[in-house]
């Protein structure tokens, strides 16, 4: 593997300085945790505690009822299904989309670094600039295209959309990672008789752990959290979690059950949080080996 020595740039410092360091770091941790803490606290209160004005305090009467309700019986549409079915919709949309865009991003990065051809920089530039397109403008033409491809209102359509608008990022990540990958290895494998795909599968991919983690985290977070595409290109049977959560939270003219809303919001956040917590330690490593090198 590309040797990534853990080289702290640490400097020697006195006790006062270190106390100060820890203080600052912990204060920031508090700042980052605050909004989520509010969500957790309020998801465990009965509603009257919240509407009674007790929004920032710990619950006096702890309850998990909102959690149960948000999952299995909150009113998201006509049926009181809770968020559960939408959670699965999101999973079957996000996982293939993430895998596809990561896989093709890896292949593209491989081609753009190890099989360069005339104009490869222009191709890469065009792919990269596609990251910046505002999604609002693609809504209508994309809907037309999905209609033409027969993918309107289906999970397949959503997967395609997320694939298309994620490929720029995944290509960027993998290209930068593979650029640092010794070209001699590719040559050695060529002489050994491995072809294009064999080199990719056997030599590059097994060494791509950290950057796969980066790509996976990035894509999964974006796709899971997307609302605009999910709302516009899904139909009744494929609406993702964010749309359901939005329906739960944004109901226009009814009583707002804030505790259930918060519990629902946390449900919607659990998969992405898990991904960050589990794969997060590869994240810095992957960035280090790849994108940060520009």
């Amino acid at each position: 593997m590309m040797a990534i020595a853990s080289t702290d740039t640490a400097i020697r410092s006195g006790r006062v300085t270190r106390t100060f360091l820890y203080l600052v770091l912990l204060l920031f941790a508090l700042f980052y945790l605050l909004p989520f803490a509010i969500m957790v606290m309020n998801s465990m209160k009965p509603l009257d505690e919240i509407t009674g004005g007790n929004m920032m305090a710990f619950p006096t009467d702890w309850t998990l009822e909102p959690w149960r309700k948000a999952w299995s019986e909150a009113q998201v549409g006509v049926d009181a299904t809770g968020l559960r079915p939408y959670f699965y919709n999101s999973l079957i949309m996000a996982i293939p989309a993430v895998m596809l865009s990561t896989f093709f991003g890896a292949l593209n990065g491989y081609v753009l670094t190890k099989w360069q051809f005339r104009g490869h920089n222009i191709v890469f530039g065009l792919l990269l600039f596609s990251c910046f397109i505002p999604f609002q403008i693609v809504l209508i033409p994309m809907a037309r295209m999905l209609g033409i491809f027969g993918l309107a209102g289906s999970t397949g359509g959503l997967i395609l959309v997320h694939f298309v608008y994620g490929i720029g990022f995944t290509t960027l990540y993998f290209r930068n990672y593979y650029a640092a990958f010794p070209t001699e290895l590719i040559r050695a494998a060529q002489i050994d008789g491995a072809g294009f795909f064999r080199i990719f599968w056997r030599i590059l991919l097994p060494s791509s752990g950290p950057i796969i983690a980066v790509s996976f985290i990035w894509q999964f977070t974006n796709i899971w959290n997307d609302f605009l595409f999910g709302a516009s290109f899904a139909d009744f049977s494929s609406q993702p979690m964010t749309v359901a959560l939005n329906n739960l939270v944004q109901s226009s003219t009814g009583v707002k059950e804030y505790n259930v809303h918060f519990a629902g919001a946390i449900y919607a956040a659990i998969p992405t949080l898990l991904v960050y917590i589990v794969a997060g330690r590869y994240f810095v490593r992957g960035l280090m080996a790849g994108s940060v090198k520009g």
Partner: protein
Amino acid sequence: MGFLDIRNATKAYGSVQVLHEVDITVEEGEFLVLVGPSGCGKSTLLNMIAGLEDITSGEISIKGQPMNGVHPSKRNIAMVFQSYALYPNMTVGQNITFGLEMHGVPKTKRDQAMADVAKLLQIEPLLARKPGQLSGGQRQRVAMGRALVRNPDVFLFDEPLSNLDAKLRVDMRTEIKKLHQKLGTTIVYVTHDQIEAMTLSTRIAVMNGGYVQQLGTPKEIYDNPANLFVATFMGSPSMNLIDVTLRVEGNSVFADTTDAKGARISLPINASVNGLDGKNAILGLRPEALTDVDGSDARATQIAHVPNEVTVTEPAGSDTFVTTSFGGKDCVARMRADADAKPGERVTFAFNMDKAVLFDPETEARIA
């Protein structure tokens, strides 16, 4: 037609020509070294033989088969890279057998071949390790093992020793030489180190600026350099170059120059030189041909004794290198370890004129 034929091979990137009409024929069992400074085109030529780079024009053939456009894996070659290029995700054993696997060799045969190679290179205990756990020398052996196991027609080495420390480099050099003698394989070896080139090769191609400057046996290259570049590039310490003026007296030719004090001295030249009277030339003499009087070659036909002032002495154990000045240029003489020479003193230098060569200062080509 030789075993490996390179005929008029050129390489150009766009309008930039990096390799000019190269013509080399390698016979079976030969050890050809491509040597030259970085950027001379030697690695490009090697990659073209390997099929890793296209041939712009000309032809390369192995065993009479043209190789232009043939995929690297179909050329029956093996290559050892400078960085060893071991697959980081595979064990040593897998690294060695990967090529066989790609060529569809069955597992039992692969394992047998691996065991043979591991034994030959004494790397049996390493087979289960990953490259990251190996030392530089061990990686080098594994890389060679990967090449050997293929039993190819031609071995290609791309500066394989340059990442090793000095001691290990010498050991591995010997090892490679032994392997070549034992297996009798055909090898093309790229290096920028002229000692490696001299010690390993059966023939050397000295390259510079995209041209092959000279192709010949190590002895030819060393003793009869084709031009100033080859003369200075090969040999360490490098050849002494003295600005001289040629003078013809009857049948004899003399090279006139000055000593450290500026006094005129004359050196007799062996060869007959026609029409060069009064011309400027560069006289090349290797340090071992410039000695103390007692250390001079007894078999030499013509030794010139010239006293001159010593500027620096460098005892190197077996020899002492003594620096003086001829024709306004520093010259190094290789004297015996106990030769009596001290800085500032005058010492008599013995010129072995049998070994002297002359170059044209304008064209840098060999005159005599």
